[in-house]
Structures are given as structure tokens and as C-alpha cells.
């Protein structure tokens, strides 16, 4: 989406590494450098948060908080990690917190509402509709997972981050990443199985 820009400014900003941007923010207080980072990472972070929360408005709000807390804490960023790793960590912290507050506030009302189209799958024969519905099911399943499980699946399968990187983001050993990921996928499979089985039977 941001690719087609041909301006020299974006050319320059693309040539600057994350680490350089951070340095410029810390040492020279250049907010422009932070804007480069925001534009570079906004989509990734927004999607991760959106999939963690399953709500667009919440995602927008939380993502903004993520970037602002990153800006405030930029001095604490150590150059030994990737900026994206650091940013993921902040995003997951915020998203997990929000997710917990949502689930305690809304108490399963959302899942039940979303279940409605499931019980009546014949309503949308069009393929686009079906695809949309599948996505909604997957999102719902993700919402139902434990936050830790959802985190594992989203980092590995949605963001396609390597085991090593996931281990760095979550600050856990790689072996733990593997076992948790396995457990999370099993949990997701269980969640989706009810839908897919029901759907297939209905079809």
C-alpha cells in the first residue's frame, strides 16, 4: 500500500535502518525519524493487534497506544535487538492486557452473536461470503484461545516470524516456543473443528 510512493522523501526514509531512526530520535530528538518507524511498522503491528483483539476500533486504539508507548520508552530500546522485536513485545503486552479486559467485560456475548451465521451456513452460498465467514470463524477461534496460544499462532503463522525471533520477542527458549506452538495449534484446531465439521455436515 505504501510502496507506490515515488517521492524522494520516502526513498530516503526507506534507506534508513530502524536502528538509525532510533538513534536519531534519541540523540537529536527528530520526530520525523519516528514517523518513518511508524509508517514502516504500522501495518504489521495493527494486524497483529487486530487479530489478537478481533475488533477493528479496539485495534486502532491499542495500536496507537503501542506506538506512543514505544516513543516514550524509546530511550530504553537497546540496540542489541531488532526494533521490530521490541515493538512486537510492546504490542503483545498492550494487546494481551486489552484482551483480558475485554473478555472480563463482555463475558462471551460476542462469541454467541458471532455464532449465528454458523448455525445457518446455507444463507451465503456465494464464495466470497463463505470466505468471509471462514475468516470470521478463524478470528472467533483465535478470540477463544488463551492469549498465550493466540500469541504463538499469530506470531508464527500470521506474521511468519521464525522460531528464533518468536523466542526473542517472548523472551523464552526456542524449545519452549516449539512446544507452546504445538499446543496452541492443537487448541485452534479443536476450536475450528467444531465449525468445520458442522459446516461440512450442513453442506
Amino acid at each position, binding site marked *: *500500500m505504501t510502496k507506490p510512493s515515488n517521492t524522494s522523501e520516502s526513498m530516503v526514509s526507506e534507506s534508513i535502518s530502524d536502528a538509525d531512526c532510533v538513534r536519531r530520535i534519541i540523540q537529536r*530528538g527528530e*520526530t520525523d525519524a*519516528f*514517523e518513518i518507524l*511508524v*509508517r514502516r511498522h*504500522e*501495518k504489521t503491528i*495493527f*494486524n497483529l493487534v*487486530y*487479530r489478537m483483539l478481533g475488533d*477493528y476500533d479496539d*485495534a*486502532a486504539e491499542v*495500536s*496507537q497506544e503501542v*506506538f*506512543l508507548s514505544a*516513543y*516514550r520508552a524509546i530511550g530504553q530500546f537497546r540496540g542489541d535487538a531488532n526494533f521490530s522485536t521490541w515493538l512486537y513485545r510492546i504490542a503483545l503486552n498492550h494487546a494481551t492486557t486489552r484482551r483480558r479486559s475485554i473478555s472480563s467485560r463482555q463475558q462471551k456475548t460476542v462469541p454467541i452473536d458471532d455464532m449465528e451465521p454458523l448455525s445457518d451456513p446455507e444463507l451465503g452460498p456465494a464464495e466470497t461470503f463463505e470466505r468471509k465467514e*471462514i*475468516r470470521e470463524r*478463524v*478470528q472467533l477461534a*483465535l478470540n477463544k484461545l488463551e492469549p498465550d496460544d493466540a500469541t504463538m*499462532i*499469530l506470531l*508464527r*503463522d*500470521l506474521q*511468519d516470524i521464525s*522460531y528464533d525471533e518468536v523466542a526473542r520477542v517472548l523472551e523464552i527458549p526456542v524449545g519452549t516456543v*516449539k512446544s507452546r*506452538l*504445538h499446543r496452541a*495449534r*492443537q487448541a*485452534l*484446531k479443536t476450536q*475450528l*473443528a467444531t465449525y*468445520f465439521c458442522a459446516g461440512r455436515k450442513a453442506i
Partner: protein
Amino acid sequence: MNCEELRTRLSDYLDKSLDAISTKSIEVHLASCPLCRAEAAALNDCIRQVSSLPAVDPPLGFAQRIMAHVDEIEKKPNMWQRFFFPLKTKIPIQATAVVLIGALAFILSQKEEQFRNRETAGTGVSAVTSANPVEKQKEAAPELAIVPEQDVQDKGAAALTAKKPTRLAKKFVDQAKPDKAQAPSPAADQTPSRPPASAKSEIESRAEEKKEAPRRPPIQAQEVATGREVLRPSVDRFGVGAVTGGLSQPSLRAAPFAAERSVSPLGELNADVEFVVRRRAAQRRDQLSSGSADTAAQGAVAKRSAPAAAAPQSSSITEIRWFTVQGDLYDRFKKELAAEASIESEKAAGALENDFIQKSARELLIKVIILSPAER
């Protein structure tokens, strides 16, 4: 590889993160096990479903909104910065602070002056208030004199404290010299080279010294210095005999201060006995002839002692002197005092009875208020 084993590694297998051997053995098992194949397919489906979730665009102007907040963070200074950062408020604040500090310093100095006046008025030496050329030293003198009464008996402490003032007194003399032509020469020593003031008193006091020598500096009737006296060009006098000379002609006090002398906790000298004496006319004449420098000094002091003049009596008070006298020499002191001036009143401090005073071996602090002869 059994099914159980396979399923724990299926996730890794689907991620293609296993080594070649493990991958091969799993493939072999899957080919022969439909249940595990189904399981693998279901899991793979899950992964695919998640990874095929479409990317969502953040709301329009997402980055701009963040940057607007960032600018806000940058603009909004914290409490400290708000006080000191914007130059246009910074300078007035600093200017105000400077003015306030200056005003405070002025007020405090005024207060201190008042306080000092009150303090000296209480001890009766108000006539010798500040604004004197040797003000600094004068201020130092009472400080040095602040030693608790008990310490007077404490030889060690007395010796220690007695030394300092001596040196200080010397300094006074040295400084007084250029001002006063007839400044005394060897003034400051505690074993003074006596002036030929009165041979009689000298002998007497020598005798007294002998008694006292081991205990403390050989001074029995020791005049307590005040700043005013410091200015006086004169010979220094010790012993009871000196008192009278001191009355007729105020002497430069080169001798030690009563550094070890009592001062109440509040810093006020408490006289054991207080005399009010009046100079005789002849002595007054004497004094007048003592030199213009002296008169000038007195005039200067009188001017400065304006606050004290408000007291009803003080107009006739020409001088207040302090002496320390051994208790057993008190009678003689009084006699000699009477010989030199007419004693108008004698007032012993509360607890002291007359005979007690005489018997007591300790030093007495005597305050002599000298009134001018002619007035009234």
C-alpha cells in the same frame, strides 16, 4: 515412530523445521497411517487458515494521528520545564527571584540588627552597639565569652578559652594603635606590665595574684571588655586599684576578656552584683583633660547608641563596665570603688547575700553603671 511421537512433532514437521532424517521418518509414518494423515491435514488447514487471513489496513491517518500525539508529548513540557523552559517566562521568574532574595536578605539583616540591639541592651552595654569601626571584632568578643558558668572552675577549659581572647585582644590593640596616637604598648598580656597608675594597688594585686596563680591567670578584678573600651587609648589596669582609674579615665582594655565568664544560656551577661556610681566632678575634669581622641570616640559612641537613649536612665549613664572580682576581695573592691566615685546603689543578684559574696571563693561578675557627675 508411533502415532503419539509423530503428533508431538507434527507442528515442527509442518513448519519444515525438522532435520532431514526426522522429516523422512515422519513422511514414512504418514504414508502408512491414515489417522495421522488426517490429523496432519487438519493441523495444516489451521495454519493455512490463519496465514491466509487477509492483511487489514490501519485506519486512514493512523500515522498522522500518532505523530500528532508525539508532537503533543514533545510540546507539553513537564512541571520543571514549564517553570524554566520558555525564555519569556524564565527571565521574569529569575528577576523576581533575585528581587525577592534581595528583599529577604535586607529584612533579615534588619531583624538581626534589632535582635543584637535588644541583646546588648539587656546586658547593659547597649551604649556600645554596633556600627563601630571594629564592629567585626566586637561581635566576635561576646561569642568568645560564651562559656558556661561551671566552666569557670574548670581549669583546663578556662586556660584554653583564656588564651584565645588574649590574642584577640592583642589584635584589637594593634588595630587601635594607628587610630589612637597614645595607644598602649605591651597591653595584651595576662601578666601585664603594669602602668604606674598606683603603686599601692599594684602591690596589692600582686599579692592577690600569688594566691590565685596556680589556678588561673593572675587577675582578680578583671575588667570585662566591651567593644567600646577597646577603642580607648589608655593604659591597661588590673587589680582592684585599677577599677578606680578606670572610672576616672576609661581605659583601653587590652587585658583578656572574661572569656570564661558566665553568660546565661540566652547569651546575656548576668552580673552577680550591680553598682550604680556617680563620677565626682573632679574626676570628670580629669577625664575631660584626657585627650581629644577620647572625647571624639565617646561622641561617636554616644551617637550610635541612640536606641539605648530611649531608656529613661540611660541619658545619664556614661558608661557601663564589667569587672570580675574574687569573692573574698569584694569588700576591698567596693571600698576602692567608693573612694573613686559615689556609690548610688548596690544590688546583688537574687540569691547572693552579702556575707555569702564575701565568703565565696568564686569570681563575681560585677556590673558598674557609671553616671556622669553633673547631670540631674
